[in-house]
């Protein structure tokens, strides 16, 4: 009902839009970013080592409950995909209840059980009506502490996983990511293998899954976040009751990745491909280190925002690609900068020439103040928006824990961004030395390789062909 009324409103607004731009007053100048305060939170530790963070927050009677456990790809010890399969099975039955019953319970609280699994963590979450927050905590407790791992569901989960893997492997972007990870982190590192093989997924038994769960899930690896409107007394009592008896389990495993230095060109042949998928990577400052924030501002200006220089150049001006973007990615003790794009095959060399040109320009020419101010303001505004939802704020707090950032990181982030001098943006770009890059190209190599060989930046660099899967 609400949705229908809102679409009607959208129609009215569209119909009353003035016909010409001249009807508008001149665009106001963006105001100075306002100070941002993170809502006060309370963090405590249960006797078994589990951490709890409560964040009273928001204007409506809902609460987000998020349980994060440091059990993921890092803990697989070479058995790729086992943590993902284990995570999928958690929701299929717990505390004697079927998967469909668990889903119905979640719906009756106004939400659904969200599941995540990655290199570092398995996460379980639900956004529920405020008065059901204790029930939501109990439901997540059932799933995390008392999974039944029903044998009847394993084959369906396995087939779903195999199908998703086969779709993922058919994508050039996955091929590029896999080739980059294997080359950059080393094929033997848990950071270097992004997908399991079909044979691995087919080989895991229910006993393997249960053993992975027993070896990796426990209170010392777990953190529970509750953000929103809730009754703190009832919530604390429920948390103690549900999680207080959880076995402490193992300590969190910390593996800092080692990076294989460039220069290197990794090629994946995709005969007949009309586009080339590009990845360009360098090490970047570790999260929270003095160089981190200036480097992030530099990234936003160079390729990490829609108004960035690389996007303006190869998308808006040249039309080589639709969605180029760069990002800074962090693991504990390690950071990397990656540029990504899918470019038309015929202009693969031309697009890279422009990207190298933009990097070199930023390294050698100081940044105009208007451009630097615009980027700092954009970063400040989007950071505040990112932390203005329950889930977003929990995500930022979890990032602090994962990466070992100072606890006031969120509050001090915007002032840090605003304080980055223009000169430091330009200096940060010098951490992308063109003679040390790792470049991955997935494409029609018969067409693309001659274009790459002609680029001055790639002279003398070894070209290596790989098969990522």
């Amino acid at each position, binding site marked *: 009902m609400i949705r229908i009324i809102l679409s009607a409103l959208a129609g009215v607004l569209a119909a009353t839009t003035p016909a010409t731009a001249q009807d508008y007053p001149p665009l106001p100048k963006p105001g100075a970013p306002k100070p941002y305060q993170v809502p006060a939170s309370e963090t405590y530790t249960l006797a078994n080592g589990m951490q709890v963070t409560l964040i009273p927050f928001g204007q409506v*009677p*809902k609460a987000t409950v998020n349980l994060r456990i440091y059990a993921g790809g890092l803990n697989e010890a070479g058995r790729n995909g086992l943590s993902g399969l284990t995570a999928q099975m958690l929701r299929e039955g717990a505390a004697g209840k079927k998967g469909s019953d668990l889903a119905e319970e979640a719906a*009756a609280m*106004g*939400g659904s059980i969200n599941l995540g699994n990655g290199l570092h963590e398995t996460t379980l979450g639900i956004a529920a009506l405020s008065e059901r927050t204790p029930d939501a905590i109990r439901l997540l407790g059932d799933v995390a502490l008392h999974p039944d791992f029903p044998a009847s569901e394993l084959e369906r989960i396995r087939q779903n996983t195999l199908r998703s893997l086969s779709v993922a492997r058919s994508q050039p972007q996955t091929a590029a990511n896999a080739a980059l990870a294997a080359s950059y982190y080393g094929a033997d590192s848990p950071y270097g293998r992004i997908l399991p093989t079909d044979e691995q997924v087919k080989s895991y038994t229910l006993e393997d899954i249960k053993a992975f769960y027993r070896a990796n899930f426990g209170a010392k690896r777990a953190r529970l976040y509750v953000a929103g409107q809730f009754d703190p007394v009832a919530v604390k009592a429920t948390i103690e009751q549900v999680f207080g008896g959880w076995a402490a389990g193992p300590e969190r495993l910390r593996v800092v990745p080692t990076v294989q230095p460039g220069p290197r060109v990794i090629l994946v042949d995709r005969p007949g491909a009309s586009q080339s998928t590009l990845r360009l990577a360098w090490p970047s400052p570790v999260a929270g280190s003095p160089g981190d924030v200036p480097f992030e501002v530099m990234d936003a200006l160079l390729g990490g925002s829609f108004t960035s220089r690389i996007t303006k150049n190869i998308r808006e001006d040249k039309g080589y690609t639709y969605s180029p973007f760069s990002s800074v990615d962090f693991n504990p003790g390690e950071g990397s900068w990656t540029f990504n794009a899918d470019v038309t095959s015929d202009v693969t060399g031309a697009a890279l020439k422009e990207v190298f040109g933009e990097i070199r320009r930023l390294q050698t020419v100081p940044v105009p103040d208007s451009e630097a101010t615009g980027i700092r303001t954009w970063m400040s505004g989007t950071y505040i928006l990112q932390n*203005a939802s329950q889930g977003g704020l929990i995500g930022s707090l979890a990032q602090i824990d994962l990466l070992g950032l100072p606890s006031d990181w969120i509050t001090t982030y915007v002032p840090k961004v605003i304080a980055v001098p223009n000169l430091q943006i330009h200096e940060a770009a010098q951490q992308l030395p063109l003679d040390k890059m790792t470049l991955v190209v997935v494409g029609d190599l018969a067409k693309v390789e001659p274009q790459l060989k002609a680029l001055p930046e790639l002279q003398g660099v070894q070209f290596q062909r790989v098969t990522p899967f």
Partner: protein
Amino acid sequence: MTHTTIEIDSSALESASLEELWMPFTANRAFKRAPRMLVAAKDMHYTTADGRQILDGTAGLWCVNAGHCREQITAAVDSVIEDIRTRPVSAEELERARTKIRSSLYNLADPSTRFGLIDLLAVGAMWENDPRWANRLESGFSKVTPQLIQSTAREYLRPTNRSILLVEPAPAAAPAPATGAKQ
């Protein structure tokens, strides 16, 4: 249930003045020179004005056509409507629906950007002359009873309140005229 059958004289369709019509996804001049008119559809086929059958293969990335005038679909829709008209929803079903709609209302009012809340206030201001209308939505949900759902379904989802529009060709479809649109 009422079946309204509109009898269409296909020659009239062929010669209907198309000049006033601008079709945004059609090559207008080519179409108006030799209009191909569909006069009926059943299951997976269209029928053209000159009596030919055309396979309706329309599909998109996210959906595929379920066919035209499918009795199975009508019957399935009827059975759900009949159920809600004759059997009071259970307290659990109603509570789940109420939880869901409250949860969606809160999601609308409290995302990080506040646009949802502004939209709600604007709807109240424009249609109810009172932005505080947004505050009354929730108490409205709580007043819904199984009896109210049933009486509402009986009032609005009456078989006599429903029309199924069937477009069928006239019994003796004349062959298509050789000329195009009327000048």
